[in-house]
């Protein structure tokens, strides 16, 4: 689904299996894929890329908003491509801490998941794509949100959804941090709220209203 000339969403809509929404920022010079999702379900992204006359080899950089498997597992499918991979170092540490269990339960080896570099709060420039990286822990210790100022698009991972917010009961999750992160992201001038799951929220008024509603309805339960 094309959101803007440079921004595409591959939304996961199946009620039968868990997976995340994947996003693509595509410009003249570069292609960044955000949250490729589960490996077993990556074909829906491949179809989306194909519709844009792209393939996995077209991707320059993969950014994961956090290191949960439903967002990150498909990174390993890019092992034989030239795509680089990045996420926040704190979430990579979380993966390292869980590595023996990942191998035992999921058969996952870390070699093809290891990030080429890390991102922290600050500016990330990839060719002609300028992104703001915001550190937004709470759902995971190293969760990040990406702000694409050109389209006023905020990609939040599992920090906040349309009408909801991320869970904090997984390893490294912290309610107070989640609330703080959501309140900081609410201050950005966003016309698109692109979450890890569920619907896209479009329009500045709708995005702002969503932030207010989530805070009003859910913060008291954290």
């Amino acid at each position, binding site marked *: 689904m094309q959101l803007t000339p440079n921004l595409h969403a591959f939304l996961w809509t199946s009620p039968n299996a868990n997976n995340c929404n994947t996003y693509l920022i595509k410009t003249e*010079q570069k292609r960044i894929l955000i949250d490729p999702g589960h490996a077993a379900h990556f074909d829906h992204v491949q179809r989306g890329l194909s519709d844009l006359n792209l393939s996995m080899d077209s991707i320059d950089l993969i950014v994961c908003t956090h290191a949960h498997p439903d967002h990150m597992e498909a990174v390993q499918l890019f092992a034989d491509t030239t795509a*680089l991979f990045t996420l926040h170092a704190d979430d990579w540490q979380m993966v390292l801490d869980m590595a023996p269990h990942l191998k035992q339960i999921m058969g996952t080896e870390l070699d093809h998941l*290891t990030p080429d*570099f*890390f991102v922290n*709060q600050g500016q990330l420039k990839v060719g002609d794509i300028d992104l703001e990286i915001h550190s937004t822990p709470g759902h995971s210790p190293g969760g990040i949100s990406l702000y694409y100022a050109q389209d006023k698009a905020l990609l939040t991972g599992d920090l906040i959804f349309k009408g909801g917010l991320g869970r904090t009961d997984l390893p490294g999750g912290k309610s107070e941090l989640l609330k703080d992160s959501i309140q900081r992201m609410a201050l950005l001038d966003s016309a698109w709220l692109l979450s890890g799951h569920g619907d896209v929220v479009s329009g500045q008024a709708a995005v702002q209203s969503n932030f207010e509603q989530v805070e009003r309805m859910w913060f008291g339960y954290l």
Partner: protein
Amino acid sequence: MGDIKSTLDLVMEKTKHLSLSAEEKVGQQRDVYEKRLKGLLQKYADDLQTFEEFQKQLKAIQESLGVKDLQLLIHQILKCVDPDRNNTPWLDLLETYAPSLTTPIQKILMSYLQRRETLLQEGSQKFLQRLQNDHQIQGSAVMPNLNQDRRIQQKLKLMQNEVRDKLDSLADSSKNYG
């Protein structure tokens, strides 16, 4: 965790007085002492014991086994020294049991940390430059993952081995203790 004895260890311990020569008995006592020393140092490393408790237990072990090999103790402590970690607990022990070694060890560790810092800084700069030149990726958000840089990791490994060799030399030179 304290030393866990195998069945063979227990049998050997119970029957050791039956057929061993005096020399063998001494050697065996040293082996037992070494094992119990390792267990004691592990407890200390795991913060399960204070410094005073360590001293007390060490004395008790030495008295019960009739072994007071200070060089063995120093060897074992030096084996615990890791240039990439906090070594204050080990330096505290050495200050008590081999005070003349603490300054040379601190110099070795300081030199390693300075060299490591320089290596990592230079490595980071080169990494960021490569990222910019080869992939047009840059910005204040970018942090190198130097664990992926084989050259850096190899150099670090060499430096760590050098530290280990220097510490082993110091340990060998401590035979004048005890």
